[in-house]
């Protein structure tokens, strides 16, 4: 590893803040591209049921697409019902749900996940790299991670959010007296 990077590694990186999400359910889904439309179908059906999807990421390797998304824990019963219900497109009653649920390799559901959002990332590969390196060394499980225009959203175990923020303190410097923001109220869109 580059010595210069090691020297940077000794310094803390200043950030603006950390935010925690509400409790989420984390769903990973595998498809074969481009023939398999089950992920797009699933996202469409979540929208039809007015289920918010605050996190999505995907990537493709050869013919396999790996897609991850999160929904609020309070919406999970709706997702379960949706997977068991007929599609609105008139497909066989549970073709999609059977395809997804019968093969654990295609759909992995992880309960009790929380998103730790750190901002701003300033498009810094050093910040990303040091966080991933630190989590790897500390045994912190990253379920998934994705960047937005200014933030780094990391999905970890919900019960570990405080611990993860504490561990991050080894490499990031927060404004004085900053404590991670927690959602104090829930915004829910109830109609179009």
């Amino acid at each position: 590893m580059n010595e210069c990077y090691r020297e940077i590694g000794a310094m803390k990186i200043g950030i603006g803040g950390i935010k925690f999400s509400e409790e989420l359910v984390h769903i990973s889904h595998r498809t074969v591209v481009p023939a398999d439309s089950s992920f797009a179908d699933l996202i469409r059906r979540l929208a039809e049921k007015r289920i918010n999807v605050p996190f999505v990421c995907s990537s493709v390797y050869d013919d396999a697409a790996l897609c991850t998304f999160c929904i609020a824990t309070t919406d999970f019963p709706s997702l379960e019902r949706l997977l068991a219900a007929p599609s609105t497109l008139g497909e066989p009653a549970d073709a999609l749900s059977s395809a997804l649920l019968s093969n654990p390799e295609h759909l992995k559901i992880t309960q009790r996940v929380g998103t730790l959002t750190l901002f701003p990332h300033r498009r810094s590969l050093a910040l990303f790299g040091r966080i991933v390196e630190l989590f790897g060394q500390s045994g912190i499980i990253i379920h998934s991670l994705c960047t937005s225009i200014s933030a780094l959203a990391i999905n970890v175990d919900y019960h570990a959010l405080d611990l993860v923020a504490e561990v991050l303190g080894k490499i990031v410097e927060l404004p004085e007296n900053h404590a991670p923001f927690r959602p104090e109220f829930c915004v829910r869109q109830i109609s179009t």
Partner: protein
Amino acid sequence: METIAVYWEPKIRVYGLTTRSGLSLYTLIFPIARLAYWGGVVGSLEIKGSEFELINLQTASATTMQLCLLPAQDEQAADVRMILETGAEHEEATCFKVVTPVELIYLHGPHFQDRYGIADAALRPLHTARIPILSAGCAGTSVYLVVSENRAEEAAACLSETFVF
């Protein structure tokens, strides 16, 4: 206490849509046990002056992770490729792939994270138009979509069905 506010828009209004071309998309699949190693490798790219447009990292299986890196267009593309490729060659059970050139579309909107249907509005038009999405990231108030060369303009036109730029 519950407060209900009413707001209606026929299409999802966003602050703007931006495209970038001539980028390279790097994908790595590696053992979870090597997470710290790859964090160090990717972090060291900053020394080369590289920045990123998009990164996502997912658990690919019980033992592997899949990292997708889209660096910003820069003069260090050859160095980035060489460092990642060399790292992958020396690691066991590690796969590495570059897709180049690719194009990026991104848009930002108000309160995406609180509203249902945003992901569907972003993914469905491209799926319907059979434009493969090589990588995507929807978090916070942003939607990022990576498509093949010469597909961004078409993808942006498709997105105008569901978004007002």
